[in-house]
């Protein structure tokens, strides 16, 4: 059950990111769950402005808070880490 939830969250996270960044050509299934999102040379070409945009959208969409930048660095590492964080926050 928890695994199904996690998969659902991953899909939702991908949809939020695609919408936020307005990447029309990319489909959720094409995004690797474990690929780094923000490190230099990442697949999306994301920068710190995108990071804060994504943080704000994720916060409002999932009703969670990613306050601390050190936490954000870990949480925004990949789709996997983002989804796990959201699941954990929801369970708290």
């Amino acid at each position, binding site marked *: 059950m928890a695994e199904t939830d996690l998969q659902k969250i991953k899909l939702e996270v991908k949809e939020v990111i695609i919408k936020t960044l307005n990447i029309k050509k990319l489909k959720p299934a094409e995004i690797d769950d474990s690929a780094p999102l923000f490190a230099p040379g990442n697949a999306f070409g994301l920068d710190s402005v995108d990071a*804060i945009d994504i943080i704000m959208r994720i916060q409002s969409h999932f009703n969670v808070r990613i*306050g601390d930048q050190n936490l954000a660095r870990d949480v925004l590492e990949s789709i996997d880490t983002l989804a796990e964080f959201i699941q954990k926050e929801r369970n708290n």
Partner: protein
Amino acid sequence: MKEIEFKHKMAAHCESGTVTALLNHGGLEITEPMVFGIASGIFFGYFESSNFPFPMFIVRNKPGSIRKNIAKRLGVKFYTENFKKSQQGIDKLDSLLAEGHPVATQVDFYYMEYLPKYIRTHVNVHFLSIIGKNEKNYLVSDSYHREKAELGAEVLNKARFVGGYMAPKGFLFYPDYIPENIDFNKAIIKGIKKAAHDMIKLPVPFVGVKGIRKFARKVTGWPDLARDIDHLSHEIMKINIFLEDQGTGGAGFRFLYATFLQQAAQRLNDGQLEGMSKRMMAIGDDWRNISYFAAKIGKNRDLGKERLNELSQMINVMADKEQAFFSELYKMVK
């Protein structure tokens, strides 16, 4: 030399995180937001000086104040020392480690090689704990890193003895006395009172809420101070960095302060303070909007008069909100 048994923990901010970790090691149960709040860490200041290449703002009190205010309000005594000669500083650190003391040191953040290069910049006031030494490396507990790390002795020594503004001069500290009985409730009230006072009552036109208003007023004139559009864009985007990226815990320390108020409310069983915590969290969200707005217009070079006026108005709204917030908070603890 062995590694000292030390509980490593990530933190929002290096100074409050390091002070918290050392106090925890010494047996005092206290959280980072509580350290930050009792030490009246929240602040604002807008500075223009011929010593600075460009105006700058700060969102917390002066580096070192967290340790000093904690000492004053909790009765903790810290051993502190800085050094004229680097060898003296190296020897002192090694002897303290040999005695079994984890020791906080001030360093240039750029040399913390265990962190990703893209987040490292030259900032002379980064704090971390040294918790041991092996043949070549020091063992480090840095609150910005996920786990304990090793740092080459030469690199650490370089980071401790760099020159420049706020040069560390090998500065080190550790708590050598922690009282058994601490009146936390009194310390919380004093910490809140001082922070609120400094935000609304200091008769200085560039600090506290007056500093936020000055920032709002002056930011529209930044194009006249910048060399060109690239420089202006860089400075505008730095608003985001100062608010979000430099160990602020997000939104210029406002989230960290909101968490402090929440913990304080629980401790004092004070529903009004709980409400203030929620208000501060909302204020943090608004600062984050400004941070995002600045980053976006800077990145897109969308820096015309209209956009900067918009930014100025957003900052002015924050001055109004923080004026109302800290005035109310001050009344609550007066």
